[in-house]
Structures are given as C-alpha cells and as structure tokens.
C-alpha cells in the first residue's frame, strides 16, 4: 500500500458541526413523523412475490391424478446441482413413468432449468417460500409430495412479453 495521504482541502466555511447536526436532526424528525412504514407485518401480511419467482418444486398431474412425468430423463441431465433422482419405469402399455422421482431441495439452486427443459410441462418451480421442515430428510421431496403441493407455479417468462423486451 503506498503511503500517500489524500488531503481534501475543504474550505473552513463549509465545515460547521452544529449546522450539519441540526440538518440531520431535521431529517430524522421528518422520518419520525412520517406515517409511511416500510415494514411488512409478515405472518398477517405477505409480500406479493413476482410471477417469475422460482421456489420449491411442484409436479403437475393429469386429469386422472397421475404425474405428467414420462421419465424422459431430461431434468436430471440438465440439472446443474444434480439434485434430481429419477428411476424410470414402464407399464404394460409401454408408457414410461417415474418409479422414483426425488428432488433434494437443499441441493437445488432454483435455476428453473428442469421446468424449462421438461417436454411434458410436468415439473415446475413454484411461487412459494415457506419451506420450514423439522428434519433434513424432509427437504428431499418425493413424487407424492411433489404432486400433492398446490402452490402456484412459476411463469418462466411473462406470457405477454415472452422475449423479455
């Protein structure tokens, strides 16, 4: 570090402690009597999150209540955090379905690639942030958990402005 002292040669007329103090106190007093508060009273009042918020996942289902997933394996491939575990299965008619579909929400970085890559629009990131659990294991969401969640899902882009213009 070079020993060079930067000296601001401010004129003495501008340096008044009392004046600056009074100015500051007027400002704080203005805020004191200002009825507008920025606090959101959380449990009663909730922050309106963006439609593009990427929170914990949700698996959409068909009308029959089965997961839309066809176990193509794209989401575990694209996932940069490697948090999706997928074991595919096939029924008698040759339809593929996931035997095991687990997302470790602790490893997930909420990039939303799984939703973007999904050809069936099955897996989605959700507009949801209240994720408390009593154990670490609770954060590994299995297929049942993913399908039963009801929170709104993320719109990866604004439908009226898909190119973000």
């Amino acid at each position, binding site marked *: *570090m*070079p*020993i*060079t*002292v930067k*000296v*601001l*040669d*401010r*004129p*003495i*007329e*501008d*340096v*008044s*402690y*009392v*004046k600056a*103090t009074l100015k*500051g*106190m007027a*400002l*704080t*007093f203005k*805020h*004191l*009597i*200002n009825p*507008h*508060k*920025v*606090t959101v*009273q959380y449990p009663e009042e909730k922050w309106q999150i963006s439609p593009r918020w990427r929170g914990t996942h949700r698996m959409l289902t068909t009308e029959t209540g089965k997961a839309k997933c066809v176990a193509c394996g794209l989401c575990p491939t694209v996932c940069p955090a490697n948090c999706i575990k997928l074991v595919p299965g096939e029924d008698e008619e040759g339809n593929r379905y996931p035997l095991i579909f687990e997302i470790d929400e602790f490893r997930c970085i909420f990039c939303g690639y799984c939703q973007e890559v999904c050809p069936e629009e099955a897996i989605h990131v959700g507009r949801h942030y209240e994720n408390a659990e009593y154990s670490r294991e609770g954060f590994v969401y299995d297929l049942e958990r993913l399908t039963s969640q009801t929170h709104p899902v993320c719109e990866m882009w604004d439908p009226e402005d898909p190119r973000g213009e």
Partner: protein
Amino acid sequence: MIPLIALLQAANPQLPPNGSGVFVIATIVKMIVVFTIYMVGVALLTLAERKISAWIQDRHGPNRVGPSGLLQPAADGLKNFMKEETYPEAAYKPLFILAPILSFIPALTTWVVIPFGAPFPTRWGRIDLVVADLPVGFLFILAISSLGVYGIVLAGWASNNKYALLGGLRSSAQMISYEISLGLSTIPVLLLAGNVTLGAIITQQAYGGWNVVNLTIAFFIFLVAAFAETNRLPFDLPEAESELIAGYHTEYSAMKFSLFFIAEYANMVTASALMVTLFFGGYDVPFTPRDNIGPFSGWLTILSVLIFFAKLLFFLFFFMWVRWTLPRFRYDQLMSLGWKFMLPLALAYIIVIAAVLLVLDAAGITRGAMHSSILGAVNVVIVMIVFAILDHGRIISPAYGRIEGARLARLRSVSSRSPLASGAK
C-alpha cells in the same frame, strides 16, 4: 425511634424539629413512589428507544407483546431473569460481580436530590417533593455521578477481555474529560442562583427567567457533556459495537448485563432531570412565579409535577433523537472536543458571566427584569460569537480539515520519497 430522629437531625440541621415523624413517613413514601416510578419509567424507556429508533428508520418497532408492544419491557425483563449467568474463566469474579452494582447504584442515587414538584400542603405541614433536600444539592450529584465510571472501568478490567478493557479505558478517559466541562458549565448557573441547592436554583429561574435563555452556552456545554457522561451516541465509545463488540459489557449476560442497561437509562433520566432543573426551570410553571412562594395547593403540585415530567420526557426524547441521528466520534475528535474546545469555552464563559454579574452588582442593578434582559443581551452576543464564528471547522477537527500549506507540502514530499509509494507506481 428517638435515636433515629436524633441521627436525622444531626445529618440535616435544617430538619424541622417538631415534624420529624411526618418527615420520616413522608420520606419513606416518597422513596417508594419515586423508586417505583423510576424503575417502571426506565423499563418503558427501553421500549421508547426501540419505538423511536424504529420510527426514525421508517419501521414499526416492537408491536407483538401486548397492545402495540407495551408489554415488551416485561418480556425483556423476564428473558433477562431466565437467562444463564455466565462467568468467563479468566474473569476476576468479585469485581466482575461488583461492577454492574457499582454502575447501577449511583445512577439511581443521583435522583434523590432532584425536586420534581412544588411543595405539597398537607394537614401535617408542607411536604417538599424531593426525596432528600440536601443543602449541598448539586455538589452531591456531581460527587455521586462521578462514581458511575468505576462500574464501567471495573467491568472492563475484571472481564479480562481485550475489548472490554479497551471499552473501560475509553470510558474512564471520556467520562473524566467531560466531567470537568460538565462541572464548569454549571458554575454560571450557581453564580446566578448564589446557592447550590437545586430548590434555590429553581426559585431563581422562576423569577429571573429560565437559565437556557440567559446562559445558552452553559446549557450547550452541559448538554454535550451530559451525552458524554451517559455514554450515549455520539459519545458511545465505551461500547462502540462496531469496534469493540459491546465494549465494557462484552462478557456480561442476563441480569448483570441488564443492570448496565438499566444504569444507562437511569443515567439518562438523571441527566435529563438535571438539564430541566438547571436550565429549564425545573417544575416551574412557565410565566408564573407563584409555584415557589405559594399559596400552595394540591392542584398546583399536580400541575408542576406534570410540567416537570413533560420537560423531562422532552429531554429523554431528545437523547434518543440524537442517538439515531449522529454517528460516533473518532476517539481523537472526542478528546480534542473535550479538552481543546469545551473546557476553554466553559472557563471563558465563567469569567464572562462572573464579570457581567460583577458589573451589574456594581451598577446597583438588582435581580429583576432589567437584570435578566441585560444578561439575555450579553447571551445573544456570546451565542453569535460561538455558533457563527467558532463553529466553522474548529469545534471538531474533521477528517478532511484544512492543513497549513507548509505541512501539506512536507506530507507530500514525504509520501513521494517513500520507497513504498514509488514501488507501487
């Protein structure tokens, strides 16, 4: 009972001999009432501080416990009682335990001599609304409030922690430096009143106008020194949380920490009460000199107590308002403000006021409207000199203060010759 009264007589020769029983009972009642109100008030002040800080920062503040957070102090108190008392292994235990007590007791004790209302007439005689009307009055406050620094220094030393020690050292330097200005700033008040009893000071103000009008500079010095004495921002160097964790009470937990906390607020109350008493006429009802000469009545007492508390609350608010406005001083700024500015100013002010009073006495002008208006005129001149001329860059040396040309050139040549500077280029 007899030896007790004799002892009290010996302690206070002004005690009326026939009203001793009433005096003892009244004093005990006053002690209990004042102590209760004081402690509840201090607890509520912690809430007020959090609320005011929140409002200044556009927040709501604590509003969950009780109606709009009113029970927050009770919750805090309960929490502090339930918490574990920790003792650092290296701490020197006797002093570690003694320190919070030593800072707590003087903070409470100073309140006893402050009159908080006009005398209250009863069937058994007049009762002064002051716990102990000591003849030494103000000197007692100076003596006791100086003891508070021991609590902080001992806490810092006994904790055996570098941050705590630094906090303790800073507080001893700060409080001793500012105590001098604090004491000296009140001498004009005492000169004017001709007495050190707080009651006499209030009486003088009831007739001659509040001291803040005539002795503004003394009030200003007292205000700044009171902030330093109570360790409040902008002078909170002893705890300086961004530098010293929590300063002298880093190692304290639970109720022992709480005692320091209460002591800070108790000191604030006492400092505010002193400012009210010395400079704002105490319990004096504005524009009426009646409240010191009578006729006394219960209503007058209630009115004067209310007025005293209104003034007190204003200063408590002022303490908090300043705290959430100003940043902390640098240590050298603190010291130079105390020794290079406030001390000479206080000394010069004493001389000026003493000279003015001497001239007024020599001219045969007695205490009254004329006397006050001459003092007020002198005061206007001094205030103009101090705030219009002295204030510019000289009260506190700023980080970017003006440096003389020769010194600046020397600094620049040193820095250009430095091998470190050339190496970096």
